[in-house]
C-alpha cells in the first residue's frame, strides 16, 4: 500500500468558488479610496487624519470587542475598515479629532458586536455611529462644514480657526433660503451641477463626489458584489419625489440637485447596499431602495434636518427581515401544501 498523507474528510461540495468575505470587503475598501483622496484636495489634509483615526478606532474596537466577547478576532476581513471609512465619510470635515473615536465605540462595539457580530447587526454600524454623534455632539456635527479649497492649499484648515471659516451645506441653504440663495453662493445652475458632480461643494468628508462614488459603485456592480436594484431605486425615488414635492408648487422641484447633494450617492451605492442590513432578493431590494429614497425626501422636506439619507437608511434597516420574509425566492416546484 502506498504511503498516504492524512486525508481531509468533509461534506460535499469539495470545490469552492474563489470568492471570500475578505475579497469582497477589501474590494469595497479600494472602491472607497478615490473619494477620500479627492476630499484632501477639497477640504484639506485633516480629512485624511479624521478618516485614519476613524478606521484605526473601528479596527481597534472590533479587536477589543471580540476579545471581550470571547469570539475569534476577524479584523483581517476588512469589515471594520469599511465601517471606519464610511463613518468618517459622513461626518463634517472640520470636526475635532476625538469625535470618530467615540463614534467607533458605538458603531462597532454596541451596534455590531453586542448584537452578535457580522451578519447579525440590525442597523448599519457606521450610520449608528454617525447618529450617535449627531445626538451627542450636535454643534460639532452640524457646524463644522468647510468651504471647498480652490487654490490647492490643503493645509489651510489644519489646527484651529475652523469656526471662522465654517459655512453652510447646499441642502441647508436650499431648505432655509431657497435656490436663489444657493445660486448666489455657488453660481449658476450649470456650474453648480458640474461642481457638485465632481465634488467641489460643502458637505461630509466622503459624500461630495458623485462621480467617484458612481465609478466605485459601478465597479462593485461589474464585480457582481452588489446589484443595481437598491442604488437605482433609491436615486430614482429621491429624484422623482423631489421633483414632485420639492418645489414652490407641485412638479417644480429640482431632481438633479437633490441627488447630487447630501449623501445620496454614498448612501445608495455603499450604505444601503450593505449585505447584512439590506434585503438579498430583487423585489425586496427595489422596495428597500425606494423606501430609503422616500424617507430621505420626507426628512429633507418636512423634517428638522436638511439631510435625511442617514436616518432614512437606519429607519429601513429594521424592516429588512420582514421584507425578506415577504419576498422569498421563487421555488422551483414547491411541495403541495407547503408554505
Amino acid at each position, binding site marked *: 500500500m502506498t504511503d498516504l498523507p492524512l486525508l481531509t*474528510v*468533509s461534506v460535499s*461540495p469539495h*470545490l*469552492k468558488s474563489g470568492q*471570500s468575505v475578505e475579497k469582497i470587503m477589501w474590494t469595497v475598501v479600494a472602491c472607497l479610496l478615490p473619494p477620500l483622496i479627492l476630499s484632501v484636495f477639497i477640504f484639506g489634509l485633516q480629512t485624511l487624519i479624521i478618516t485614519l483615526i476613524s478606521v484605526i478606532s473601528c479596527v481597534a474596537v472590533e479587536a477589543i470587542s471580540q476579545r471581550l466577547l470571547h469570539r475569534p478576532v476577524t479584523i483581517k476581513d476588512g469589515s471594520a475598515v469599511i465601517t471606519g471609512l464610511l463613518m468618517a465619510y459622513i461626518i463634517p470635515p472640520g470636526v475635532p479629532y476625538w469625535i470618530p473615536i467615540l463614534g467607533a465605540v458605538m458603531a462597532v462595539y454596541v451596534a455590531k458586536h453586542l448584537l452578535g457580530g457580522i451578519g447579525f447587526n440590525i442597523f448599519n454600524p457606521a450610520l449608528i455611529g454617525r447618529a450617535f454623534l449627531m445626538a451627542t455632539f450636535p454643534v460639532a456635527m452640524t457646524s463644522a462644514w468647510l468651504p471647498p479649497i480652490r487654490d490647492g492649499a490643503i493645509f489651510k484648515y489644519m489646527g484651529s480657526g475652523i469656526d471662522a471659516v465654517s459655512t453652510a451645506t447646499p441642502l441647508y441653504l436650499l431648505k432655509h433660503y431657497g435656490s436663489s440663495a444657493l445660486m448666489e453662493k455657488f453660481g449658476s445652475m450649470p456650474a453648480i451641477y458640474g461642481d457638485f458632480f465632481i465634488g467641489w461643494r460643502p458637505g461630509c468628508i466622503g459624500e461630495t463626489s458623485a462621480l467617484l462614488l458612481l465609478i466605485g459603485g459601478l465597479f462593485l456592480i461589474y464585480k457582481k458584489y452588489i446589484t443595481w436594484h437598491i442604488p437605482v431605486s433609491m436615486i430614482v425615488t429621491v429624484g422623482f419625489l423631489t421633483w414632485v414635492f420639492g418645489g414652490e408648487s407641485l412638479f417644480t422641484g429640482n431632481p438633479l440637485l437633490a441627488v447630487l447633494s447630501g449623501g445620496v450617492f454614498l448612501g445608495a451605492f455603499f450604505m444601503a447596499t450593505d449585505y447584512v442590513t439590506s434585503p*438579498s432578493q430583487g423585489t425586496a431590494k427595489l422596495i428597500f431602495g425606494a423606501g430609503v429614497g422616500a424617507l430621505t425626501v420626507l426628512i429633507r422636506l418636512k423634517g428638522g434636518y436638511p439631510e435625511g439619507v442617514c436616518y432614512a437608511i437606519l429607519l429601513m434597516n429594521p424592516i429588512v427581515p420582514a421584507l425578506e420574509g415577504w419576498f422569498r425566492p421563487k*421555488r422551483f416546484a414547491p411541495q403541495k401544501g407547503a*408554505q
Partner: protein
Amino acid sequence: MNESLLTFPKGGVHPLESKTLTEHSPVEILPTPQEVEILLSQHFGAPCKSIVKKKDLVVEGDLIGEVEKGLGANIHTSVTGKVKKIGVSAHPISISVPSVIIETDPEAGPLERSASDWEGLSRDELLGRIKKAGIVGIGGAGFPTHVKLSPPLEAKVDTLILNGAECEPYLTTDHRLMVEHPEDVMEGAKIILRILGIKECHIGIEANKPDAIEALKEVSGKTSSNGFSISIDPLKVKYPQGSEKQLIQSTTGRIVPGFGLPFDVGTIVQNVGTTKAIYDAVVYEKPLYEKIVTISGRGIARPANLLVKIGTKLSDIVAFLGGTKPDLAKVIMGGPMMGFAIPTLDIPVTKTTSGVLFLTNDEIDINPHGQCIRCGWCLDACPMGLSPNEIGVYVEAGRAGDTSQFGVFECFECGCCAYACPAKRPLVQFIRLAKMKAKK
C-alpha cells in the same frame, strides 16, 4: 451558436471544469486485480443475499448476490476465481456493508460474449434481461433500472431523456463513452424506447463535449431511425445541468412538481452509461460487473479513464497509475460537487462509482467558515429556489426542526450554495442536519 444552447433558468454555478486532465484520454482496461471485494449493496434498496460460499469457484459474470425482497438488483462476480471470504467491507456512505471477496484465477482469460439480435424480443424479455443483468442507474443513486423502466400505467410517459450532461467537474466517463461507443448508446436508446413503447428521445449533452455531440450526431445520421425520433441536445455548460429535474426542464421545458418523479411529467431519464449497460445486457446478455471510471485530480501521478472490474480496490487503481503525489489532500468518490470524501483507499469500486478524484490542497478549500454575511449569493446559486442562508442560520441556532418553511426537503444537495458562499459555510452539511431534525 451559444445563444441556442438549452438550459434551466434558475440558479446554477460555474466551477472550474478541470476536465482537460482526462477528457482526451481513451479508456484503458485496468488489468484484473488479484482480489476483488464485491459489495452486496450497490443499489437503492436492501443489500442482496450472497448465494455463494467460501471456496466456491465462480466464473466472470456469475450471479453471486440475489435480491431477497423489495427493491434491488442482482450482483455478479467481475472475475473468475475462488470465493475467499463472505464478510463486511468499508463503504463510502454506509460505513460497512456485507461483501464477497474473490481471489482471481490468474490463468483465466477474458470472456468472449457474442451479440444477439434484440429486435425480435418482447418487452418482457427485454426487461427480463435487464433485471437479470443487475442494471442500476450508474450515474447516481443506483436505482434498479428494470423498476424505473416499468412506470405505473397511469403515468403517460412520452419522452425518454438520456443524460449525457456530465456536469460534475473532472468527470469524463460519460464523455469518453459517448465518443468511443456512440453506436451502443444509440442502440441502447432504441431498446429503452421499445420497452417504453414511445418514439421520442432527447440526449442532453453539455456543450463542453463537442466531440461527443458530433459522434452521436454522426451515428444518428447513419443508422435507420426505425420510426424513433432521437435528438441530440447541446446544453449550456452550467452546474447542475445533469440534475434530473434541471435536465428535464432544459430539454423539454417541463417542470417536475415538488416531491414528484420524472414520469409525473411524462419523462424518464437514464444516464448514458446506464444506457450502454442496458445495451450490453440485452445484446450480449452481459451483467453489469465492470464500468468506466475517471481517475483524476492533481494528486494522482497519472490521471486516466479506466475500465474497472467492480470490486477493484482503489489501492489497486492507484498502484496501476503510479501512486499518489505528496501534496494529496483529499480523495473523493464521485464528482467534486456531490461526491464523498473517503479516509482510506481500502474501498472497492461499485456500480455507481463514476470517478475517484485525488485532489491537492490547491484544488480544495480548507479555510474555516465564518458567520453568514447575508450576501444572498446562495439564493442566486440555488437551482431549486430555496434559502440555504436561512437554513444554515437556523441550524446553528439550534432550530433545525423549523427549516421546512425554507424548502429543505426539496434540496437535492447539489452544493451550489456552499460553492458560492464567500464565508465558506458548510451549507450542505447544515441542510443534511436540518433534514434529519425536521423529519421528526
